């Protein structure tokens, strides 16, 4: 009886010391998770998730404050990738935050633009060129299609143009054939 108690207490002291020491010694700094989540996000910086950009949303996911299905541009595929990374179950896109639209770029109708620079301030990736009282233009290769420039424009001269398939962006399609129900995941 006494031996049993002694063994237990000795073991407890030993374990307590070792665990206490290793808790200090092997403390993990920083959170590499945020970067890994951020890498999955599409970087449109559109804020539809309710956070002011992709990085803040990534941070929120890592902390467990935000769900994985709040990013419309990433779509279901993005939510799937996040679910896999986080080890949680996949959820379809939460439509409160918007629906996935075809990828588009903003286009300024140059005849209507009054050069107010409000859209320049709104653009999260500095993809709009121009100065006060001068016509603005969008570098379409840099535009992420976030639509943040639409609301500030006082004359509604900005429209979103979906990117059409051209011979440069053309892809081979997934082959679909009879008999086997290919493509049904």
């Amino acid at each position, binding site marked *: 009886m006494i031996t049993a108690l002694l063994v237990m207490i000795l073991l407890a002291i030993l374990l307590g010391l070792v665990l206490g020491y290793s808790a200090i010694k092997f403390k993990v700094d920083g959170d590499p998770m945020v970067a890994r989540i951020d890498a999955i996000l*599409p970087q449109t910086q559109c804020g539809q998730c*309710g956070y002011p*950009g992709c990085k803040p949303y990534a941070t929120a996911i890592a902390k467990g404050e935000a769900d994985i299905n709040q990013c419309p541009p990433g779509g279901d595929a993005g939510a799937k990738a996040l679910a896999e990374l986080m080890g949680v179950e996949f959820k379809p896109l939460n439509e409160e935050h918007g629906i996935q639209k075809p990828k588009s770029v903003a286009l300024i109708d140059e005849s209507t633009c009054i050069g107010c620079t409000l859209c320049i301030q709104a653009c*999260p990736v500095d993809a709009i060129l121009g100065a006060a009282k001068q016509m603005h233009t969008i570098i379409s290769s840099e535009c992420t299609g976030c*639509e943040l420039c639409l*609301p*500030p424009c006082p004359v509604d001269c900005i429209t979103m143009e979906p990117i059409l398939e051209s011979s440069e962006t053309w*892809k081979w399609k*997934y082959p679909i054939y009879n008999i086997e129900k290919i493509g049904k*995941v």
Partner: protein
Amino acid sequence: MLMQIKKIFKFNGGVHPDGNKAESTHLPIARLPIPKKLVLPLRQHVGNIAKLKVKIGDHVLKGQMIAEADGNISASIHAPTSGKIIKISEEVVPHPSGLPDFCLTLEPDFKDQWIEKKSIQWKKLDSATLIQTLTHSGIVGLGGAVFPTHMKLKINKTQSINTLVINAAECEPFITCDDMLIRERADEIIQGALITQSILNAKHCMIGIEDNKIEAFQSLTKAAKKTSIEIKVVPTIYPSGDAKRLIYLLMGIEVPKEKRSIDLGIQVFNVATVAAIYRYIELGEPSINRIVTVTGNVKTPQNYEVLFGTPLPELIKNADGKETKIDKFIMGGPMMGFDLPSINVPVTKAMNCVIGSSPELFLPPKPVMPCIRCARCADACPVYLQPQELYWFSKSSQLEKAIDYNLFDCIECGCCTYVCPSNIPLVQFYRYAKSEIIAEEKAKEAANTARERNEFRLSRIEREKKERAERNAQKALGAQEKQATDEKKLAISDAIKRVKKNQQENIKNKNE
């Protein structure tokens, strides 16, 4: 049979499809008359689209450059005959996508008037100058790869080319354009090979030809009699005409992954390409036409010398096409070719063969059964891949796994599909997976740029805020005098606040 000169190195797999070459070789190469109009796509090569040098209404002469190479990886376009530019528009081009691309339309004046032709004294010029000249020739790889030829001739100072290989293997069934070219114009090829050898400063030059082209072999041997060019016969096995496979067959050298043959001192050119080099250097004729095999369900299968831009119906009409039986046209051979989106496409630099297809000629695909992992595809794969695994990963869109299993080593030769008992369109899945991966990489790159730009913007805003705060602090020292201005500032900052609030509200509205 032909004499075997040296040992041949056999690669793994490969298949022996029926050649079907005899149909189109019993008639000589015919020259197609100038058609009523020519449609010239500005992108007939790998790389950047060519820059226009003419405008609508311009009159051009035969051989005049109408679009210039844009940058290094690009090729010029020349007028195939004299006439007037009547249209610059988007037209359907011979591409598997069936999407339109920029094209020039030329209305011939039927005078066929040459621009002044200048032959080049290549023996007196150094390689760099010659390559510079060739940049304006419009010559691209005519075997089907359409890579700008001048780029393939450019070599680093550190590299030295040991062997120039001329590819005369032409292993695809049905296609005989190279075969006929060799039979009729072996001299041009040998001359072109010598020019190319001298530009590359290559020690050896050898021609690899399959053992089913006896006549072509004989005329080549005759033409090469007084030269040091070695003509090597390789066995008829598909895909011996693939450059890396041919190098292995001839020399037993495997071109390592992610390296080009040029890194090993070997460069490969198609016979038609060296013939084009000869015509440009010796005769001053840029790349304006090519030999096209017209075969399959046409009355008189034959090879034609066709001007680029010739509408396909003209060509088919000349081959007495029986269009009732033909359900579609295939560009290229039956192993690697593709359905033309429409008959109304122009002949381009890549078009080596047009097959009038019918359900009798190429049986409609049989029902696809599940893969039974019989590994016949692996036995047939000339690259020694595991097609059944690649299929599995491509089918389930596990793209990273597909990359791990060396998807990008696949040359899409089609041997795997050729031997598949389950009739699975394997190559289609690889094409899908490859283009999906490439698109994903592009998207990733775009996302990275966006992230950087966003971070840059945020740090700029942060910096500006700090600077403004400092400035404000300084100004606050002598503030009283400038109360008026301050008030103004207040108004401005209020305005900014209002704008920001508006923005936020807008975002909120949208979210709701």
